[in-house]
């Protein structure tokens, strides 16, 4: 079962620089385990020691936040797209920051 996973810049050290990787699994938890088998260490960065999603990590299935879909138990289907993003201060401010960083 192929699921496209978009990796944020901050975690690309685990994927050899790749922006997107493929994975498989029936749930987000399965998918993270599958990813970790090829990109060792990535799972530990996304989860807390207690096994929940890191507070500053957001995971989306087809653009919807998994925390509202059962979190790590959120179901996945073939062809789904998963996006992993760090949580940042939102609104205009975040964009101002992007603009500023670009110079």
């Amino acid at each position, binding site marked *: 079962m192929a699921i496209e996973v978009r990796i*944020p*810049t*901050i975690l690309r050290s685990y994927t050899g620089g790749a922006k997107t990787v493929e994975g498989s699994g029936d749930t987000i938890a399965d998918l993270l385990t599958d990813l970790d088998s090829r990109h060792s260490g990535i799972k530990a*960065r996304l989860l807390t020691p207690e096994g929940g999603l*890191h*507070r*500053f*990590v*957001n995971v*989306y299935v087809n*653009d*919807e*936040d998994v*925390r*509202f879909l059962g979190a790590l138990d959120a179901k996945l289907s073939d062809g789904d797209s998963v*996006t992993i*993003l*760090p*949580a*940042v*201060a*939102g*609104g*205009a*401010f*975040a*964009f*101002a*920051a*992007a*603009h*500023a*960083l*670009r*110079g």
Partner: protein
Amino acid sequence: MARYESVLDACGNTPLVGLPRLSPSPEVRLWAKLEDRNPTGSVKDRVALWMVKAAEEAGRLRPGDTIIEPTSGNTGIALAMVAKLRGYRLVCVMPENVSSERTALLRMYGAEIIFSEAAGGSNRAVAVAKEIAAEHPDWVMLYQYGNEANARAHYESTGPEILRDMPTITHFVAGLGTTGTLMGIGRYLREKVEDIEIIAAEPRYGELVYGLRNLDEGYVPELYDAKVLTRRFSVGTRDSVLRTRQLVEVEGMFVGFSAGAVLHAALAVAHQALKAGKRADVVFLVADGGWKYLSTGAYGGTLADAESALDGQLWA
């Protein structure tokens, strides 16, 4: 009556306008709460007014005092107007190199600007504002990300207006930034409307915004309480631009790009209701008009051009 004693009194009571062409069916309807119809042209006029009033009532602000705030967007502009009319000095902290329209608007209203180094991004500007506030104990930082009056502005004004104008509301959709809009309106509607769905649309920013050095530099606004939300969507720039243009072309509404992201999520839930055979009145919030974003060029040309024009621009 649409007569007001001053521009501050003209804050709020914005129109709720139907989308007859983009609504999927007569039973599943979309409604836009047009917050660009506030004095400085954005939803943030309510927030600025409520935060200043709360600080005055608490005795934190007295005439002639200085307000310091990390902001470069609509909140800064709204605060600058409120500060000018109520006799305060405003100092805004923002990263270097924000767009010239914004600094011009802020300076026009008399605000002073302190720049924080670009490389630290928004988190750095918040930190700098906190440092400066600590050096000046008499200055007041309203800090919209953690100020309960931000959410309360919507609990006390925007929420009741929406329910008054649309008692049959089934879904409310808005953008997620400070989270004040969704927390305030969401809590109010949850108390009054059984089974209401509160949906967040979060604009997916450019890569650089997410280029933190480590995950512990992440940030969730203090106001955020996930229990208020039913669902949360991340909307990419291309979808936001597409929907923003659709609003102009199909419904004649000229709005900022964050409203496009919000409409994208609103259309998704509306079409799900249609498919499920349920009736729905989906209210979504338009945070501001398109004027401040015209210079991006993203209202014309191809979607790909618009997408790259907006990458790194202020639009939400």
